[in-house]
Every structure is written in C-alpha cells, then in structure tokens.
C-alpha cells in the first residue's frame, strides 16, 4: 500500500511538473531594459525566430509579392493633425466609422466629449494577450510620449544603416477579422557624441510584415510605403497639457485592408522595418552629415493597432 501511495504522489508530482512549461516567463527580463540614457541601448531589435524573414532559419513557407500601398486606392493616411493633409483625414474617415467620436491628440487624459482615439482602438482592450511582454508598449493605447520616454515607445532602427534592423513579433492568438491598420510614431536622429543636434526632416520607406498562419508555418506578406518630411527631433511641447497646438511632430500612418490582396485573416505575426532615404534640414534641405561621428536614426514607435479587429 505504501508503494502504491508513493507511486500516486510521484505520478501527481510528475503531472504537475509536465504542466510547468513557463508560459508566462517568455517575456521576463532582469532589470529595466530599453530605458537607458544611452540612445543606442534602447533599440528594440528582437525577432521571433519563426517569422524572421531575414534569417534562413525561420518557419515561413510562403512569401507573397511585396505590396506597395497606393495612396488613394488603399486610403492611406500619414497625418491626422496637419491642415495640409485634408485628404489624409478623408481617408481616415473612410476607414474609421467612429472618426467623429475620436480625439486623436488625447491618450492618457480623456477628452471632455467623445473618446481618446489611442485607448479606444488599443489592442490590449480587444484581447488580454496583448497586455504582456515588452511589446505590450505597442498595444497599450499610449500614442504619445507624455514624459514617459523609453517606457512608452519602441525604438526601431533602419534596415539600411547600422545593425538594428526592426523587429518581428509573434502573437499568441490569430486575427479573424480586421478592417484597417494604424501606427503612431515620430523620428529621432542623434550621433554617438551628441543627442542634441537640432530639428530635421526624414524621408523613409516603411516596410511592414504580416505573417499569416498556414498549415505548415507562415505566409509572409510585405507591405511598403514611402513617407516624406517626417518631423525628426521635434519636441512634444505642443502636446503637454494644456494642449496649445496641433501634434505635428507625430505621424499617424494607416491604411485600409483589402480583401483581395491584403486580407489579414489568420494573422499571427507582425514585423516593422524601415529604410532611411534621407535626413535633412527642413529649411535648406541639406542632408545631415555626422562627420566622423556615428549617426543613430530611429523611428520612435508608440502604438500599433488593427482597430476593431477580432482575435481567437
């Protein structure tokens, strides 16, 4: 009988040990990363192996032809807070049914009427799985700096300069339905010798990767779009309450998903990369020359969302 009892305890303990898969420990880190005064240390350059299209050792079974977004056809918008971009706002209205109710410039503080756009469309409020890990910074509804600096943004490096080439993350769930994509960012450029080199504009080519689950692995769909005149090293002085001006230093980039060539059903991974085309002075258009110093350019990505999407 004693042997039997011992056997039962052993079986129970083994069963518990077998369940111990450390599912919640995948995103654990020691200390506080990406929160350093050293600019270079804050680049988020993590690629989940299965969807790393830059490496041969991945689980991508099919790569679709790169989709270059068309401004009109895909209802692209890159600015929501600039009078010069009225068409952008029309595109936003076309993809977002509740556009009239949303206030783009609010995220932490709720507007008196209507809803703050960021928190309203944040993925963390759609599915709990987006609440965990360093990447949760991208899905938490915080669209702007708000004085939280590295704690709220994800710093992404260009793919054609330096060694920090974007990031790629897998989702624990699959998207079943979505209508448009949105992300909010601004740009920054510094050198290894100075972090205060003045304001610039950046021309860049965004490259988004959507990874759809298939029976054997992933189907990779690259999507690109060139954005010009992105304010770089622009402060957030317009943003700090009371709101005195428009948020022209941020880019809200989005587009309509197309059922024919860009259907994100079974989306289970996402990557963000960009190519730096030019960094130049806004007035003289003179390209920035770091001289003998090393230049560090980055996109400060605050929010990524598939508003009103469903996941399972």
């Amino acid at each position, binding site marked *: 009988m004693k042997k039997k*009892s011992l056997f039962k*305890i052993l079986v*129970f*303990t083994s069963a*518990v*040990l077998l*369940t*111990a*898969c*450390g*599912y*919640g*420990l995948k*995103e*654990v*880190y*020691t*200390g*506080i990363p990406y929160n350093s005064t050293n600019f270079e240390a804050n680049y988020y350059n993590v690629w989940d192996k299965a969807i790393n299209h830059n490496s041969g050792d991945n689980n991508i079974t099919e790569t679709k032809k790169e989709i270059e977004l068309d401004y009109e056809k895909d209802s692209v918008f890159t600015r929501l807070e600039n009078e010069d971009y009225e068409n952008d706002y029309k595109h936003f209205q076309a993809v977002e049914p509740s556009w009239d109710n949303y206030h783009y410039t609010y995220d932490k503080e709720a507007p008196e009427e209507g809803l703050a756009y960021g928190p309203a469309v944040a993925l*963390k409020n759609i599915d709990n799985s987006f*609440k*965990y*890990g*360093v*990447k*949760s*910074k*991208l*899905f*938490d509804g*915080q669209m702007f700096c708000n004085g939280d600096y590295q*704690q*709220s943004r994800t710093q992404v490096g260009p793919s054609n300069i330096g060694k920090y080439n974007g990031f790629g993350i897998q989702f624990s769930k699959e998207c079943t339905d979505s209508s448009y994509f949105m992300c909010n960012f601004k740009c920054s450029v510094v050198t290894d010798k100075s972090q205060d080199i003045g304001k610039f504009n950046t021309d860049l080519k965004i490259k988004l990767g959507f990874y759809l689950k298939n029976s054997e692995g992933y189907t990779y769909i690259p999507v690109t779009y060139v954005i010009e005149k992105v304010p770089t090293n622009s402060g957030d002085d317009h943003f700090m309450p009371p709101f005195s001006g428009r948020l022209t230093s941020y880019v809200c980039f989005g587009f309509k998903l197309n059922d024919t060539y860009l259907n994100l059903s079974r989306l289970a991974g996402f990557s963000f990369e960009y190519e730096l085309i030019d960094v130049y002075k806004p007035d003289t258009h003179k390209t920035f020359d770091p001289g003998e110093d090393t230049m560090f350019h980055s996109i400060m990505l605050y929010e990524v969302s598939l508003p009103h999407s469903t996941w399972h």
Partner: protein
Amino acid sequence: MTKKKFDFSTYATVVAFLCLEVFAFLGFSLGHNYILYGSLLTALAILLFIVTFRQIKKDGIATYAFFLFPIFVFALLSALSPFIKDSDGTIGFANATFIPITLLFTGLSGFFVGHIKGFDIQKLFLVIYGALGLFVLINFIITMVYYVPFYPLIYSNSYIFFEGKPSPVPVGQTAYMLYGFEIMEVSLTYWSLYPLILCTSVIALFYIKYKDNKKVFLTYLAFVILGALSLIFTISKYTLFGDLMLILSMGLLILFLKVKKSRKPIKIGLIVLLILAFIFTIIAFLNAQTWSWVSGIKNAIANNSLFNRIFNTNYYIRKINVILWELFNTGKIFGSFVGLISSTGYGAYQEPSGSWIFDNLLTSGLFGALFFIFALYIGIKQMIKYYQKSGEKDVNKALLFAYVIGTLAITAVAYSSKPLIYANNLYPIYMFTPFIITMFLISYTFKPLESQKEENNEQAEVNENEKEIAI
C-alpha cells in the same frame, strides 16, 4: 377539528445539506465577491433559524451574544470607517454595507447549525477542506503552467512588462489564481495562504487511524500533500513567515491537544509567547510615536543594533510603525484612518502591514480592533470549553481548532490585503473567505451543552442497540 402544526424542523437535514453547499461554494473564494457571500449567508441563516428556532434557548443566545456583539460592533466600525471611502482601491459602499450583514449572518448560521441534531460537522470539514483542496489544486496547476517549479527563487529579480509598463513587483513575488471566473496574477503571499490553511488539516492524521478509516485518512493525507507540494514548489522568503507560523501553530496545537497529562509547560510556553507578543506591540507602539516622553525609549532602541533592526529598519516594521503613528497622531482612533493611500493623510502610499492585527487598526480603528480581539478572546474561551465538554469526536474538535487557530495565526503574520498585482483593490481580513468560515466555526462551538449531552446519550443508545442487534 384541530389544525396540525407544521413542523419546520423536519426540513433541518435539507437545510444542513444546503449549509454544506454554501461552504463548498465559499471555499472557492470567488474573487472577494462580498455581496454574494453576504446574500448567501443571510439566506442560509434565515433558513437555519426557521428549522431550529424551537431548540434555541434564551441562555444560549445570551452567552453567544458576548461573542456576536463585539464582532458586530467591529463590523459596523469597519463599514463606517472613512477607510472605505478615502482609500485608493477601496471596497466601495455596497461591499461596506455587507460587512456587518455578512459577519452577523455567518455567526448566526454557525450558531443555528449547532442546534440541528443530525448535523455532522465531520462532513462540513470534508466539504470545507475538499473545496479548499480543489481550489489549491487549480491554482497550483495554473501557476505551474505559467511559471516553473521554484520560480520565486529563480526569478526573484526578474520583471515582466504588463500593459506597456514593468510589473510593480518581480515575477518571483507573483502567482496565478482562479479569481472569480478569471485567472489573475496575485501576490505570492496571498496565494500561499490557501495551501497554508489546507495544511492545517494535518491534525486529522494524528486522530484518524489509517486501519480504522482508510478513505478519510487518505483524503486528509492528500490535502496535506497537495498543500505541502504547493508551498514547496513556490518556496520564497515572502512566504517563509506563513510557513513558520503554520509549523509553530500546528506543533503547539498538537502538543496541547494530544499531551493530556503534563500540559503545564505547554501552557506556560503559550503564556510566555503571548506576553512577548504583547510587550513587542507595546514597545513598537511607543517607538512609533513622536511624543517627547518616549524619546528615551526610542533612543535606547535606535542605539542597539538588534533592537533597531527589530523595531525600526526591517521591511515589515516600517509599515507597522506608520500605522501605529497615524493612530494617535491624527486622532482617528475610531477608524477614520486615511493614511493607507490618501491625498490628505500622512503618507502618500502606505501599504497594509501584512498582519490583521495591525491592519485592523488601519481599517476599523483602535476600538474596532479591540472589539475584534475581545470577540476572539470570548470565542477561543468557548472553543476550549467546547473541546473539554462536547461529546463530539476528538478529530472534529481538533480540526475545528486547527482551522480556526491556523487561519488566525497564519494571517496574523502573512496576510496580504492587496492581493491583485495589477490593481490597487484592498481586501481586509473580513473579506477573506477562510476568515468568514472561521467566524462560522467559532459560532458553532456555542452549541448548547445539553444538546451535546443528549447527543452523547443518543449515540450511546444507538451503540447499545447496535450491540443488541449484533448479539
């Protein structure tokens, strides 16, 4: 024609069964759903009253009132305390209303159940520990799915990002729990309270002989093994106080209940422990004050490295000191203590102390805390009387002692009023389901001695009849 009187007491067995179901339900904790507990226990108390009111005697009620009245005053002061409205993460007005309701009707349920003749408390213990065991098993498996064995030691300094921000405590101080109908991250200290209380069932193994009752023995053994495994796999310095208190309280209880001849040294030991705890509280209280006449004591403590560590510089005493200081320096001895998390009070954010003894000062004020201690004194006195004079089986009496003393002792050193990691919700001891069950069990011991004698006689008669049949 005479009308036949309807005898509600015939339904006593049905209500007793309902009582078991309610306590099985409570065993799952249900995410501190106080309104649900309160409503269930109110309904139960009313039904129990209907089936037992003929057996209730005035003397019994008067004796019981000595326990119930201070508990009710404690509950009332807790409900009226500005702590309810001033604190961040407050339990809210609706829950506060249910503090006196829940504690009153829990107590009454226990008292009325004692008057049901056929009520078998052994079954109640199997239900309470069974539900707790299942709850612990679920929590244990969930936590192991998310983490790995011994993770509090491995990940003691590792954090996780949640909603874009680093977690407020390292992974090693958290665990996963079935919280209501959701799986949520809770503090490891709070999580471990349930396996610790489950382990108090160890006392049954000292009374039940394996050969006599294999099933019951193995059931309690399984509870103890499950509790112990949960505690071992999540061992941490944050749960150590609770573990030590479990061992100490159960060790002393077993000695006290089992050693019948030379109890004197145990009694003396207990009295010494209580005196030491009392002296500690008095010194801690004086040391926390800023009155000029205590400066001598304060200096003496500060100048001695050991005393300084005990009364000033350790993690736990710092929180206790703020509570003790606030008590008299803000004149809020009736429970209007706003120092927990307050915009106008003394501290910007004062965490609960981790002990119901000091947290009661915070949540219910000095008078509330004193009424509570007085009620416990009356309750424990009655429990001893019940142990000595009741004719019930020793194992049931020992289990009652183990559950009540174990829960109170463990929560006195390791209670976590803020169980949720990503929310500031505060749940003082009166919202903790094992504590509610404790109130029920203490009230049960107020069952009339006459009925116990009758029970004994009835039992003796049954035994006689069985013998006769056997012959």
